[in-house]
Structure formats: structure tokens, C-alpha cells
């Protein structure tokens, strides 16, 4: 970036202050671009991309790098053993962390009689800050090496003398596009390739029958697979997984897999099933609702019974604060009369759960008698919701029944 600016200044004779202003403008523009593209902006940017090869006389050398002279020769020499590696590690993704930088690469060898040592070794490396996570760049490094390998096999792209001249614009494009847009398409030439940065997230938990999926953002339905397209219309924040399966006429496990996939992409969140007999309690995050003005607006919009008349934040806060262990939503409704306050109690609970202002208090029945069968079903490991959903019974009926039985203890936690 700075390099480019200097070039500008040299090209057009400008007075110094103007030159500074021009640079500043460019920076401003760049900043503007960054902010406008912020959703694509990577938090762990690539600092440099370089290609190194095993020269038949000089040994491991950097063929070209973007930006230039980013990795010094000394630095490269000290780590070259991890970049041009022994044959055992060919096509492994290798990341070496130095004090300032992380270098990740994927060593490649092409065997051919035409090369000086009957083989051509090269490695395309990304350089990032040493504190950043780079796992998501690994597939890209591999894919880009594959692309270069194909170019090399096709027309000696890398091994002929003029390689850097053609390679530098290519690497520059990759660097800028990946940092700014998170994706890059290399077309032109005999082969094409597409690169996209995909965040690696931890695996989503298994989805249970009694959980309720709810959309976190509006999603164009066309882009999904067939199962998701069939399931998506029934995800309304109130239907639980087993019910969705029945309504959409899709096999239960497929629905679970589909919902799990949506959870992975953060399109969908899982909330507990809404019932008037449910009990919730506030978390320590509830204070944010009183402090965060944006959250307040979002909240009143969300929980309003009709968008024309918004509830006031004090009533909403009071309702959340009144959710204690032992108070069911039914109790809450009789105490506050939410429709009079313009509050939709279902939405209220949903918002609270999604923003983690409140959390569900589950009931776990434990059977204290001797009946082995009952000990198994009421062991305390599964909550009332799970049992109801598995047995297909109404929660209220089961709870009434359990409360009458003195050998059953209901633990709330």
C-alpha cells in the first residue's frame, strides 16, 4: 500500500504537502473501503504470500513475494527446513510460528526428467501475524498449490525464467481479494480455481426432539438443499423438531441433521419449547437491558404485540426480573397481564433466551422407589421436556401426575 503511494508521488511532480494530502486521501479511501467491506474483512489478515523453490544450486530460495522484502533472507534461512521439507512431509500442511509471524505452507514436488534434479520442489506460503488463527487458510494454501502445480505441469509456469513477472500480479490479487472479500477467483489461463475463506467452527451439538429452532437472520430459501427448503417454512420459533418433522413430512433424523447444519452456519439458534408451565430465571446479563440503549430498542420491537404500539422498557424489564425459580409463565401472565402492556409473552421469552437475559429452569424427575423400570425413565438424567417429547405426553398432565406421586422428586436446575 505504502509502496504504491510512493510510486504515485514519484510519477506526478507534486508539492510535498499535496503529496501528503494525496496519500492521506488514499488512506481515507482505503479506510472507507475497509469499513464498507467490513463484513468480509478478515480478523486474521494475510500479511504476505510468497513462493519458494528448491534451486538446484542455491538450495531453498524465495522466488517471489508480495509485498516485496517482507520476509528477510535471514529469517527465511532459519526456517527453510520447515518450508522445503524432507519428502515425508510432502503435501502436508505445515505451520511454523515465529516470534512475529506465522508461515503456513504445503510443500509440493513434481517429478519430471526435464528438471535439473529430476524434480521440482516448491512451496506456496501465506504469512500471518503470530497471534492470529490460521486454520481456515489451510485448505486455501493446498488448493492454491494445486493450481500452481497444474500451471507448472501445463506450461512450466513456475520453472521458466520469467516466473516472477507473471506470478506477482497473481499473488497480489489473491492477497487483496482474500483479505478484503474473503474470496478470490483465478480465471484465465488453461485452468481456473476459486478460493474462499471458510471459518472453522467447532462442531454443533446434537439436536434433540424437544428443541425449537428459530431463525436468527432472514435467509434466501433458494440457496439451500432440498431438505432444508422443505423444512425451513416450518421453522417459526415455536415448533419443536419432532413437530417440524411431522409437519414437513420429512424423516426426523434428516430434520435434525438439517437443523444442526443451520446451527453451524449460525442461521438458526435452538431455544427451549415454549409452554405456559415453563420456569425461567434471569442471568447476570439482564443488567445490559437497562444499560444498552440499542438492546432496549431491539427488545421493545421484538416483544411488542403489534408493531404499532411498542411496550415500554420498564414493564419489559419488570417482567424479566419477575421470572424467578418457582414462577411459571402462567403466573407471570396473571400478575402482569402482558397484552395490556403490549407485550407478547412468547416473544418476550424468546428474546430473553436468544440474548441470554434469562435462562430456562428445567425440571428433572428422580424416582426414589424400587421399581427398576421407573428408575430407568426417571433417573434424573433427562428433563421433563425430554421425557414428554419421547413419550408423546402433555407436559402438564405428566407434571400433575408426578406431583401426586410421593416417591418422585422433582429437581429444578
Amino acid at each position, binding site marked *: 500500500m505504502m509502496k504504491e503511494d510512493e510510486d504515485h508521488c514519484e510519477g506526478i511532480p507534486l508539492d510535498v504537502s499535496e503529496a501528503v494530502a494525496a496519500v492521506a486521501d488514499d488512506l481515507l479511501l482505503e479506510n472507507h473501503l475497509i469499513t464498507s467491506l467490513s463484513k468480509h474483512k478478515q480478523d486474521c489478515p494475510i500479511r504476505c504470500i510468497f513462493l519458494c523453490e528448491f534451486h538446484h544450486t542455491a538450495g531453498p530460495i524465495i522466488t517471489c513475494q508480495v509485498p516485496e522484502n517482507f520476509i528477510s533472507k*535471514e529469517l527465511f534461512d532459519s526456517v527453510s527446513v520447515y518450508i522445503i521439507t524432507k519428502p515425508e512431509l510432502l503435501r502436508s500442511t505445515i505451520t511454523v510460528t515465529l516470534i512475529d509471524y506465522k508461515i503456513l505452507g504445503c510443500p509440493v514436488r513434481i517429478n519430471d526428467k526435464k528438471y535439473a534434479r529430476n524434480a521440482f520442489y516448491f512451496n506456496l506460503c501465506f504469512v500471518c501475524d503470530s497471534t492470529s488463527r490460521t486454520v481456515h487458510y489451510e485448505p486455501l494454501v493446498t488448493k492454491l498449490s494445486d493450481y500452481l502445480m497444474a500451471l507448472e505441469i501445463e506450461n512450466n509456469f513456475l520453472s521458466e525464467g520469467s516466473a516472477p513477472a507473471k506470478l506477482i500480479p497473481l499473488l497480489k490479487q489473491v492477497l487483496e481479494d482474500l483479505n478484503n472479500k474473503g474470496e478470490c477467483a483465478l480465471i484465465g489461463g488453461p485452468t481456473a480455481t476459486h478460493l474462499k475463506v471458510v471459518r472453522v467452527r467447532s462442531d454443533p451439538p446434537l439436536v434433540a426432539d424437544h428443541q425449537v429452532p428459530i431463525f436468527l437472520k432472514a435467509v434466501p430459501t433458494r440457496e439451500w438443499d432440498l431438505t432444508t427448503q422443505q423444512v425451513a417454512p416450518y421453522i417459526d420459533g415455536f415448533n419443536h423438531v419432532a413437530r417440524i418433522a411431522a409437519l414437513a413430512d420429512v424423516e426426523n433424523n434428516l430434520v435434525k441433521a438439517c437443523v444442526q447444519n443451520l446451527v453451524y452456519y449460525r442461521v438458526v439458534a435452538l431455544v427451549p419449547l415454549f409452554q405456559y408451565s415453563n420456569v425461567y430465571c434471569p442471568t447476570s446479563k439482564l443488567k445490559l437491558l437497562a444499560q444498552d440503549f440499542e438492546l432496549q430498542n431491539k427488545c421493545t420491537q421484538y416483544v411488542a404485540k403489534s408493531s404499532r404500539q411498542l411496550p415500554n422498557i420498564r414493564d419489559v424489564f419488570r417482567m424479566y426480573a419477575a421470572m*424467578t425459580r418457582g414462577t411459571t409463565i402462567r403466573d407471570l401472565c396473571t400478575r402482569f397481564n402482558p397484552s395490556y402492556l403490549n407485550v407478547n409473552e412468547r416473544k418476550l421469552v424468546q428474546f430473553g433466551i436468544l440474548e441470554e437475559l434469562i435462562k430456562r429452569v428445567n425440571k428433572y424427575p428422580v424416582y*426414589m422407589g424400587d421399581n427398576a423400570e421407573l428408575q430407568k425413565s426417571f*433417573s*434424573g438424567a433427562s428433563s421433563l421436556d425430554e421425557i414428554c417429547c419421547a413419550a408423546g405426553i402433555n407436559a402438564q398432565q405428566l407434571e400433575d401426575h408426578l406431583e401426586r406421586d410421593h416417591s418422585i422428586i422433582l429437581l429444578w436446575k
Partner: protein
Amino acid sequence: MEVNPLSIILVKAGSKGDRLLFRYPYHEQENNEPSGTKRKNPYALSVAEDLLQSPLPPISNINKGGLTGISDELLSSLFAVKQELCNQKFELKVNDVRFVGHPTSLKNKSQDESGLLLIHIVFALQALASHSVVKCYHDLSKRLGIVLRHEEHRCAYISEQTFSMVSIHDDSCTGNLQTESVFRKILEKCTLAKNIKQVYDDLCNTGIVNIRINRWIPLSFCLPQKVHQWHLRGKILEPEDIDRCLKALRPYHSLLLLYPVQQLYDFTSLDGSPSLLRMFSQYSPLKSLQTLAIDSDITLSHVFELTAHLVYWAKATVIYPICSTNKYAITPDAPLHLNSTLINKFAEAFPGVDLIKEINDFSLPTSLSQKCNSLYHTSQQSQLVQMIIWMLQHHLLVQLHMYIQYIPTDHGLMYSNADETKNIPAAQTLQNNGILSSRTFSATPSRQSRTHSESDASIISDIFEPRPDSELGSAAMNSSLANVSFSSADEEKQDYQELLLDFPDDERTAIFKIPASNNSEDLNLFARLCRNGYFRGEHHVEEIMYLENLRRSQLLQLLDKFRDVLITYETEDPAIAMFY
């Protein structure tokens, strides 16, 4: 479990080249995977163009919790780093394995004949291991390196150990021994290899390493991500979490040891801090840290440090001291089911009492005083306290605190000015109060700052024009007003309003609708607490009591009187919540 090491590797580099001396575990993992899953479909066409389109499956170097697929020669060439990379952190990721170490240079000023250049103990971890885990392992490798270098310079320990290891390796080449038996032989003969095995086993089992290298230098190390798992099942506690908790530590908190004091005496080593022992001798979970500091005659800050140490090593956790007003509920992920081992453990500690039945009393938040009604004898009460301590040690109970949120109007708070005024710390207010109360001025002029009809503004009223950021005026008036006697109730009410000069208008009107605002004492206390920012959900009732030296009944009465603008709710203390 991603925090366990896959393998520990010892590499040396010297004038005769590099060599992998020892690695543990050395058992070759047999590949028992059914080969059928990998068999290719014989009918599939192999299309040449697909070469680039179908990527190879990612290579894995982990097999059943062990390192695989990288030869010893390669490992040694990777870890015998160049001199430039010596004495600094080494981190290398190959496929899904992350190697962490600290290559330690053994170069001495007086060149010794062994020709040893560096020694490097490398931990192979799963690549998923977090930054903090990597940091801890690096620390361990660094400390091992320092100890080894010291021992080398003291009595050429490394030279001797490497010599015997290398000779066993060399013998194996002539005698055609398998790698596995070579390493077994090394393990039998070399103390350093035994130490490495010990480190591996300790890390995998408990997370606490306690070894003595060369029977001389003790090395203790704690992997917090692992060591806290025995009591926090499956939850990984990061060192940052512990730091955050310790930053939030207050004098009213209390220490809860997770082991009997007797066992902890063994934990403190011979050269352990004597103040730690003194603190143990005065320890009680009913004491706050402040009391503990006074009783054991240690400064409070040192008690905090000792607490931090015990918490980091998973010997203790932080709670609010057990007292009769504490409310407890069951933790959300408490493993309370019929097959839980805790049930038997509880029955051993308290014969004849059932954990499930006992803890069921806390299904609804219950305080000790509610539970200890008159029917309880003192002996039963003490047993109850013991049971609660046991449940807290096993993280089955969470304490609920009452938090207070000040919401005067329907629209919440006016944050444009409320923020600045309320952030001023209590001490400053008091100071200002002290300075200004010595001055005398009449209360009447400032009244007209709101009633604009009175035009005869005096100089003093101009000075005390209510500005959103002037806390001085109102604070000063509080004190001066206390000495003024009033003639009529109406005027009295007017004068009370001076207490709330720094509150925005609509907040003030909301407050004056409350009957209790007619009582100057109540209003005074309310205004003080509100200004000090106690009603923003950041402080629980106990903390306000502690900081403002109030009685519980006083505070609760106030909350009840001003319940129209103060909303209370109960939740856990976020400062110590990660231990629940």
C-alpha cells in the same frame, strides 16, 4: 480430550548431528480400522481431469490419542532447530498435530568436550488446542529446559544421560532391536526418560506435574485447563477466566478449600510460603477473606495472592461466606441422577442422608435461615452447614444474590448525562461533601433555579445553577439541609428536591410521586446510593451493605419503599460464576 499431550519427544543437537533420544509413549499404535471402509469402488471410473477437483482427504497424524506417521529421524531434524531459533518459543503445526517446545541452548562459554549444542523437549498436541493450552505447554518445556541446562552445567547430567541413550540406540542398530524395545530399555536405565514418562502420565491423569529432576531439582507445574476438570466436569477453565475472577475478588468473598486442610499441608512443599500455612491454620469457610487476613495476621493483598494461587492450582474456589441469609439454588448442570457417583460419596460423608432428597430443598431458592427453622437442633444445624459446604465443594449449589436496577421512567434511563454523574466514585463525593459543607449558604436561592418566576436571582444561585455534572452543589446541600428546620410541610417538600438536583426532571418527578420521598432520611440514602451507581445491576445487596456499611434490613426497607423506581432480581454473582 484436547488438552492431553499426544506425545513427549526429547531431541538433542550436537557436534555429531541431531538425534531423537527418547519419546513417550513409544508403543506403536496398531491400525485396527477395518480396511473395508477405505477400499475403492472397483467400478468407479478414474477420470484424469478429476485430479484437481477431488481433493485428497486431509492427512492425519493422530491415531487413538497417539502420534503416528512421522519417523523419528524426521522429528529429530524438525526439532533440532537452528541457533537463531534457540531459547525462544517453538511452535510447529504439521497437519493436525501441533508441536510446542522451547529449544534450550547448552552452549557454555568454556567449550565442553561432549559437543552438545541444544536440548529440546517437545510436546505434541492436537492442533485444536487453544492458545492458552499451547502457552502452558511452552512454559513447561521452557522450565524443563532451564532445569536441564542448570543440571548440565552443575554436573554434566545431560551429557551423561544422552551418552547412555545414544549408546542404547547404537547397540540396537547392531543387535537389530525393535524401536519399541530400545525405548523400553532407555526407560529402564535413564532417569531423564523416567521423568518424561512421569510428566506424560501426570499430565494425562491429573494435570499436576510434580517431579524431581536428577533427584535434585523439584519441578511443579499445573495445567489449569486440565486440573480443574475433576470438579468442573468437562468444562475447560482457561487461565484468563481465573484471572478475571481474581480481579473481581473482594474482601467480603471467602475461600472454600476443596480438600481437607490436612491434605493441603502435604501440598505445600518444604520451602512453601509460611504465610500459607498460617492462613490454613485460621481457615474457615464461614470467614471472609478480610477476617481471614486479620485472624492469620497477613495483609489483605497477600491473602488475595494466596487465594489466587490456591484457585489456580484447583485447591480452592471462591464463594460468598456461608451465612444464614444466603440463598442457594441447584446449579444447572449438576450431575444429579441415580447413577451418579456423587450420591454414594455423599452417603459416605453423611450416613443416613440422601443427597437427592436433601438437595431437593434447594429446587426453589432457599436460604439457610428458611431451612433452619426452630425444629432444627444445633447439631442438625451444624450438619446442615457441613452438607452445604460439601455441595458447594462439588459445585452442586449456586448462590443467588439480589441485584437492583434503577428504572425511574417508562423509557429507561437518560444516559446522555446520567453516565457522567454517576460514575464519580464514592470517595470523591465524600471529599467534596467534606470541603463544601463547611461553607454556609441558604437553601432558598437554589430553589428558584427551577421556578423561573422568581427573577431576583442572587449571585449564589448562579453559582449553584444545577448542571448535570455538578454533584458538588447537591452533595453540599445534603449536609447543610440536615441542620435546617422547616416551617411548613410544603416548603419541606420543596427543600427535599434539592437532594435530587442532579437528576433529570422527569426522573425527579417520578421519584417524588413515591410517598417515601417525603422522608428526608430515606430520600437522602436513596439519592446517595443512586449517585454512587449501586442501582445499576453491578452490585448485589451484600456488596452494597459492605461498601456503604448498611444493615440488610435498612437496605431492604429502602428497596421496598422505592420499589416503583427500583426493580430487583436474583441471579448469581458473575465474578465467581465460572466455578458453578
